[in-house]
């Protein structure tokens, strides 16, 4: 569901925190981040959300792991892509995933003051952008968007 327009969400300003309920059977989320702390927190945040009857998460520490997962046949509803990974891994990984035909919602996760990232993000083909820190409300918004665009 790669969309040409990209929305910037920060501090929950654009999030109505609505409740998508349990209309969704399953939600598969991939957390891509090189920082183990970020992976742990984001994975836990997602897995605790009651946004589907079954929520499954997986993590990848870098671009290669994210690509390998897809090459081995895994697919995800949402990919949370940390934009702060070194060597422009985030945007590059996104471009490569799109080139592979991955149509998942890919969401860049970055810091609010990283304005330079925004251009890379739009160019890379991300669907949304979230400012850190990630919160339950922001992720619920993503799932709502997913449901709306089904």
């Amino acid at each position: 569901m790669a969309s040409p327009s990209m929305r910037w969400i920060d501090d929950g300003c654009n999030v109505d925190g609505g409740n998508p309920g349990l209309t969704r059977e399953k939600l598969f989320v991939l957390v891509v981040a090189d920082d183990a702390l970020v992976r742990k927190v984001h994975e836990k945040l997602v897995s605790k959300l009651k946004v589907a009857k079954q929520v499954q998460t997986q993590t990848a520490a870098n671009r290669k792991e994210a690509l390998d997962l897809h090459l081995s046949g895994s697919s995800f509803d949402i990919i949370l892509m940390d934009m702060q990974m070194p060597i422009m891994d985030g945007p590059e990984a996104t471009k490569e995933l799109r080139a592979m035909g991955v149509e998942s919602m890919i969401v860049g996760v970055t810091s609010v003051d990283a304005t330079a990232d925004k251009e890379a993000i739009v160019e890379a083909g991300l669907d949304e952008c979230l400012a850190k820190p990630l919160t339950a409300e922001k992720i619920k918004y993503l799932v709502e968007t997913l449901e709306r665009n089904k």
Partner: protein
Amino acid sequence: MEVGQMQRRLAEFTKSMFMEGFLDGQFLQLQQLQDESNPDFVVEVVSLFFQDSEKLLNDLTLALDQQNVDFKRVDAHVHQLKGSSSSIGAQRVKNACVVFRNFCEEQNLEGCMGCLQQVKQEFYLVKNKFDTLFTLEQQIVAAGGSIPAMEITSF
């Protein structure tokens, strides 16, 4: 000391960490992620933060000690420290990193050196606070009590 007293002491201490700016709302989000299936989640995440940060602070010390300081490299380390401190709600460390990044952008070595000391100070202050917090929690659990949930409206 009986369990009720210990629980009140823990609540007061945690509240003081928020009032003094050591922690912000993100820490509450972290606490809400802890449950029976992952009872040590907060301790694990905070411990990860301390391990990562000690390494980052060492790297920063080395990077600023070079003949020709690579400010981009320094900034990258500070950026990472800012991100992880923000993730656990370590507000004062995060704020010190914000100031630090400004000096990196200006390539102001003296400013950066001052900021490094500030970040280290804030880091060790919050580390001591967390050590006390977790010790209080352990004492309550050892005495057969449970850790009361933090009320967001209590401060």
